[in-house]
């Protein structure tokens, strides 16, 4: 993943959490990982994108972080469905922010709907033989906890 995309991810996450939740988040790590190093958490949101660039962006977090984020957006009385909706919307906004930070690239991609996967014993993968890299970003929200963004991106050769 090139430096421009990495910066767009960091800025997109920072913008979204500060504007939507008033959270100050710090990017504490960012590295290329292999498929078997992908993080497993109780909540996972996946958004696929396609266009000049194509790939997947995931947001993975604990139930505690997901509930705190949903409470921050919706108030105190929240159902499990509200939590799923809220973190889906957060990744949707992060993806939109990343796209806007990449705006120098002519229409970098179009975004598919967010998909929220939740449960205790599951794993989310991209296919095992991939053409591009997966980059893992770890973020810390003060007094709340950590969450992870994984990005798998390739240039679309057909474009």
């Amino acid at each position: 993943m090139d430096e421009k995309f990495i910066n767009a991810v960091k800025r997109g996450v920072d913008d979204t959490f500060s504007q939507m939740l008033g959270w100050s988040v710090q990017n504490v790590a960012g590295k290329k990982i292999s498929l078997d190093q992908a993080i497993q958490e109780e909540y996972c949101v996946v958004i696929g994108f396609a266009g000049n660039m194509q790939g997947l962006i995931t947001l993975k977090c604990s139930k505690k972080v997901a509930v705190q984020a949903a409470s921050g957006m919706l108030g105190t009385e929240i159902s499990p469905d509200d939590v799923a909706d809220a973190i889906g919307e957060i990744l949707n906004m992060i993806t939109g922010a990343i796209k806007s930070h990449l705006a120098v690239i002519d229409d970098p991609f179009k975004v598919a709907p967010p998909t929220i996967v939740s449960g205790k014993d599951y794993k989310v993968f991209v296919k095992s033989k991939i053409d591009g890299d997966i980059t893992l970003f770890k973020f810390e929200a003060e007094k709340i906890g950590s969450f992870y963004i994984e990005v798998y991106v390739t240039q679309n050769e057909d474009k």
Partner: protein
Amino acid sequence: MEKNITAAMGKAAENTLQQLFDCRVQKILQKPITADQQHLDEFSCFIGFTGSYNGLFVLKCSKQTALKNGACMLGGEVSAAEALDAAGEILNIITGAVKKYLHKEQNPFTITPPALISGRESTIRVPRIETYSIISYKFNIALSGNVYIELFYK
């Protein structure tokens, strides 16, 4: 327009499964469902699409069915990871076939890479703020068992 994609999905899935596995494939079910009526299974994969239509194609099956399908596609015993990959590839081929059925429509959709999920205890949902129609399809493949396909679209 709604009818086009739901009919295309049914035909594309049935034909693709028949061609891939060279055996009897029967469409047992095609009906609209609500988000909480989704089928849960051990292996799932989904592909997002965006264009004139927006949504998700989702394929679900048991691990045993995925292993049999993977063995048939790859020619020999396969690992669980390979079987999950094969399930993603099946869905990829089906989505390509759906697009062919919709060739008369301008830019029906562009697809995203497949995401693969293993684990019976997982649920997949789209946010309620987005109002997607969901159509559930169930196919029986004589060789391997039942495959469930769900189409989320708007």
